[in-house]
């Protein structure tokens, strides 16, 4: 795993009255333990990876509590795990990144929600929406509604989040329904504090086992009981949920002196709303507002009594609901119409349909609402604010002479996936463009310059499946690229077995770096074993871990080649062969090279210890002679490494910047390989630097110096 959670594990052990300091998602983790969960699972992905990562690392403490922790291999498997709570009175929680994870989990989610649950079930989803999001912009809300599971969207401060976690389990048990809690990216990463409670050891757990439940057909999602289950959702469970929500005051009402209007806001957007109100002089820093606000910490289901009660006596409401479509606004509309409440309802008519609701956006919407329904307030400075910011931006762009260049994420220094794309670039140069089915993972950085590969992305592990139709009609063999993470998440079944079943042509490249690296280098079933890593020291270990190759052979893949990604020339030849061979079945190239983040984590302490002990240590880095570099930057167009950059030439005659390797170079070797494979230029050199040289090193250096007067 990419980082160590040693300090965070200690804060999970805090007891009653102590203050927890830390990240939002770790506060959720602590709240799970305070709620007495028996089991926890999930699939990693920003922004919720840490929930599971910390629990996996806290193995010993979890064993002490009797809590079972499972790293699931995809979200469907995580959702299915909640099946434990259908028949047993045990609390369980799982986590994943939404919307994508919820899509994958949807089947199990339907089958879970239909029979309902005995023990409290909580699904913590990272609502990956807005600034910093890495997935399709859709709402989890839709899944909550169609499966009739309840959806929490707590105010993004730690005490509220923690309370909502604890209340979610009670709500789940009171209404026999799973609960989803959506946390936006920044809420997951927010640093705050709350007063802890003691952790609760679950009554049924790894420490206290229970007899298997007797057969009860009613707990199956199987006809004919599914018909009754559907009725129960709306006739029993939802009313029970509403009673619980109202009874426990889960939603919060804030009074304001302009009581003839009101705002209804998702909990997660509350802070941005307060800041917007503050900007136009209608709230203070502590959140005291002049406009009444109903804060929905539970966004599904709504409680009609609460909505009607809030609307009564008001001439207008503004629903502040981020993302589309406007499910909450529609539901409020129905509630008001059914109750014949004549309050004007606004929402997406005044606020944008799509995009994150930042304070800036909300100022604009509030201005429209106030102008229409509280004209005595004037425009309350909203127009001034909008003008001020528009002018600021215009001045900035004018002063800068245009927008600054974008900086998307990219491959790390020394990433073993970069050389694969260098090889692919060389193949493309010779063969012309071909269709590339991309996938999710670090290798999707290959879609950015300088590589710019990829015609489609259809989901995690879906690249081979997504090229099934394409291969039937394009003139050149298409390539599907997936990571080992995607392969185990979905690609093996949806892609490989489908191709084998149909005996159709196909070319799959599996980037075997040993981990699900993009999410924080979590382990896979094919992650190199601890002893292999110990033996390898700083070397790559993915060449000896052959689970993927064994699996493919076992399935009957006949054309299978494993190539180390740093052998750029060999990779290029292998790709050439795969694209031109007459073999018309599935061809798989395993592009192997261990995640550099994991390698560097091993290398650094080994090297530091050796240096400290006075042992001979060789550091390799690459360099460019700026005298021979002519400043064409072909090498950069084949690499994009952060340490391969440009600088003003020391030669005053050269006007274009020359290539330059910074001292951050980890000596991965791509520069030299690419220079060779692409017949680039003689400017690259490799420098091997020997610290604590041996007597022999010194002697040889002296001999060489007689000739070279150099090193």
């Amino acid at each position, binding site marked *: 795993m990419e980082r160590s959670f040693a300090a965070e594990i200690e804060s999970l052990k805090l007891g009653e009255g102590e203050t927890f*300091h830390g990240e939002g998602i770790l506060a959720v983790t602590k709240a799970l333990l305070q709620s007495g969960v028996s089991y926890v699972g999930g699939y990693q992905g920003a922004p919720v990876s840490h929930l599971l990562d910390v629990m996996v690392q806290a193995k010993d403490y979890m064993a002490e509590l009797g809590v079972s922790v499972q790293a699931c291999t995809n979200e469907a498997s995580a959702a299915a795990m909640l099946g434990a709570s259908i028949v047993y009175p045990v609390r369980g929680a799982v986590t994943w990144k939404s919307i994508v994870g919820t899509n994958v989990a949807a089947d199990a989610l339907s089958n879970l929600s239909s029979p309902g649950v005995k023990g409290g079930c909580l699904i913590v989803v990272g609502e990956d929406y807005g600034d910093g999001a890495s997935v399709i912009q859709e709402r989890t809300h839709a899944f909550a509604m169609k499966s009739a599971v309840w959806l929490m969207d707590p105010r993004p401060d730690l005490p509220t989040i923690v309370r909502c976690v604890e209340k979610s389990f009670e709500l789940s048990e009171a209404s026999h329904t799973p609960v989803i809690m959506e946390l936006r990216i920044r809420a997951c990463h927010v640093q705050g504090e709350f007063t802890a409670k003691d952790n609760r050891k679950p009554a049924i757990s790894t420490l206290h086992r229970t007899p298997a439940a007797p057969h009860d057909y009613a707990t199956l999602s199987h006809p004919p009981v599914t018909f009754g289950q559907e009725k129960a959702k709306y006739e029993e469970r939802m009313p029970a949920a509403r009673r619980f929500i109202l009874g426990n005051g889960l939603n919060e009402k804030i009074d304001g002196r302009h009581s003839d209007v009101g705002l209804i806001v998702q909990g997660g957007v509350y802070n941005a709303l307060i800041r917007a109100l503050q900007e136009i002089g209608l709230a203070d820093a*502590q959140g005291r507002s002049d406009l009444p606000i109903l804060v929905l910490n539970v966004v599904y289901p709504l409680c009609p009594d609460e909505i009607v009660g809030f609307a009564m006596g008001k001439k207008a409401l503004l629903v502040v609901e981020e993302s589309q479509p406007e499910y909450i606004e529609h539901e409020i509309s129905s509630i008001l119409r059914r109750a014949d409440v004549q309050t004007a309802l606004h929402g997406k008519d005044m606020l944008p349909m799509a995009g994150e609701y930042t304070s800036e956006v909300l100022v604009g919407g509030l201005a429209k609402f106030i102008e229409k329904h509280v004209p005595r307030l004037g425009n309350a400075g909203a127009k001034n604010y909008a003008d001020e910011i528009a002018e600021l931006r215009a001045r900035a762009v004018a002063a800068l002479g245009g927008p600054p260049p974008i900086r998307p*994420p990219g491959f790390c220094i020394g990433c073993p996936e970069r050389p694969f794309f260098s090889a692919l670039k060389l193949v493309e140069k010779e063969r012309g463009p071909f269709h590339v089915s991309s996938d999710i993972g670090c290798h999707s950085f290959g879609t950015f310059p300088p590589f710019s590969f990829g015609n489609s992305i259809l989901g995690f592990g879906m690249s081979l499946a997504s090229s099934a139709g394409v291969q039937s009609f394009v003139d050149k063999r298409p390539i599907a690229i997936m990571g080992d993470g995607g392969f185990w998440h979905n690609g093996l079944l949806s892609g490989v077995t489908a191709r084998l079943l149909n005996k159709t042509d196909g070319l799959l490249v599996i980037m075997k770096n040993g981990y699900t690296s993009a999410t924080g280098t979590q382990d896979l079933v094919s992650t190199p074993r601890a002893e292999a890593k110990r033996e390898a020291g700083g070397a790559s270990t993915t060449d000896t871990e052959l689970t993927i190759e064994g699996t493919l052979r076992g399935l009957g893949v006949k054309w299978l080649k494993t190539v180390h990604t740093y052998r750029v020339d060999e990779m290029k030849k292998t790709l050439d062969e795969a694209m031109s061979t007459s073999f018309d079945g599935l061809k798989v190239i395993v592009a192997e090279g261990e995640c550099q983040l994991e390698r560097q984590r091993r290398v650094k302490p080994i090297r530091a210890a050796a240096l400290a002990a006075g042992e001979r240590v060789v550091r390799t880095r690459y360099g460019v002679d700026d005298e021979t570099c002519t400043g064409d930057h072909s090498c950069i167009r084949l690499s994009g490494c952060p340490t391969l950059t440009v600088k003003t030439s020391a030669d005053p005659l050269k006007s274009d910047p020359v290539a330059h390797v910074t001292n951050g170079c980890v000596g991965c070797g791509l520069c030299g390989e690419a220079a060779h494979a692409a017949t680039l230029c003689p400017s690259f050199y490799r420098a091997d630097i020997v610290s604590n040289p041996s007597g022999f090193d010194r002697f040889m250096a002296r001999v060489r110096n007689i000739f*070279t007067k150099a090193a």
Partner: protein
Amino acid sequence: MSEPVKVRSILIGALGGEGGGVLMDWIVSCARMNGLAVQATSVPGVAQRTGSTSYYIEMSDKPSDGPAPVFALIPMPGRVDFVAASELVEAARMMERGLISPQRTVLVTSTSRMYTTAEKMQMGDGRFDSSRVLAAGEELAKKFVTLDLDKIARETGTMVSATLFGALAGVGAFPWDRAACETAIGAGRAAAASRAGFNAAFEAAAAPNSGPDTAPAAKPGVVASAGEAGGFAALPAEGRSIAALGYARCADYQDAAYADLYARRALDLAAAAGDGSPETAHALAEAARRLALWMCYEDIARVAQLKTKPERFAKIRAEAEMSDDQILSITEYLKPGADEIAAILPKGLGAWFMRRVERKGAPGALGRGVHVATTSVHGWLTMRALAQFRRIRRASLRFADEQAAIENWLAAMKTALAGSPSFAAALAELPRLLKGYGETAQRGQRNYDAIFSSIVAPAVARGDFSGAASLRKAIAAALADPEHVALDAELSQAAE
């Protein structure tokens, strides 16, 4: 009721992997130690992989018993008190997003650059203009402080997170003293380096007249003359120092006679100039530069000569920050093509060799990369031997070709200088396309030839130099993409 609490907001723009999370933790722990309500958040996500990212912190200005403020999770344009950027273009990004307000925001930025891929991959110079960012900062920030955080971090052996912390403290971003920051950094060896970086950045940022401490990179060509510029008195001032450098370069490349040839060519151009306008002066200076680089084209002998210069090893040692007791060995990555071998052979032999290659393909040994350890005795002698081909360069195949092409260009230059300084200035730039090795060189040659034959030759033949703009556009197009898509479009448009 107690007096209202004010919220202080701090935004940090950085790159993934710079330790921004650690910085955020330091700030949060300081705030807690001082009894302030605080909230910090970030959007690391995949941005941790070297992309742009940001960290946002809000805190109450002073301790209070009342309810804690409702903190925002997203910085509000125009309403941020302190912004720090670990890199200059990230500061520009903050300005572009409207986050820097002249009424409110103190902006402290590193002057260092981590070029984006989009800037680096251009065939010419795609770097964003740093001076514009510095000017924009002066215009848009209430207070603008610049310092080289990357350099300070390297000098003190720490990460930019520590120097950012020092810079923020130095500009007064925190309602606590410097000692509290040092306490937050903690103890231990890494912490000692962090503290050193923190302190150095603090001093630099707090210095009263803190301005750009790294002057914008000098434009090449304005460096004072190292050679005898006196011989080039006939050239305008702008071109003299360039010509002196060119003269010295040619002497180093070949011999004194070759340098004299350079001088004659440069002075001939000056004699052909029609007027003494600044444009003409610029054309002559640029031509002197391109002529020198062209005459010193990089063949195997030149590469071997440059790679065995004694000062090269000292430079590499310095660049790698090596200490005296470390031993360096250098391995070159060479893969000379058949044409590059033929280029240094005597003309007749080289031509025969190329005919043979065309007929039978390159001998097996060619096209296979070789590793030459220049620091080994064998490697050194090999490279020195290759460098000796310089002695027969005048008789080589490529030399003859290059000199003919140079004369062609010079002839066109002379006519253009007399006819149109503006066209001459553009034509002086044209040899900029001739660079690189192997395929890159071939592409450059192709582009040069295409532009020369479709724009330059007709202009010279007709004596009509009105096409300076299209010549300049064609050169820019040739540098726009390696697949010469832009150039082909440009030339076909010019032909219509």
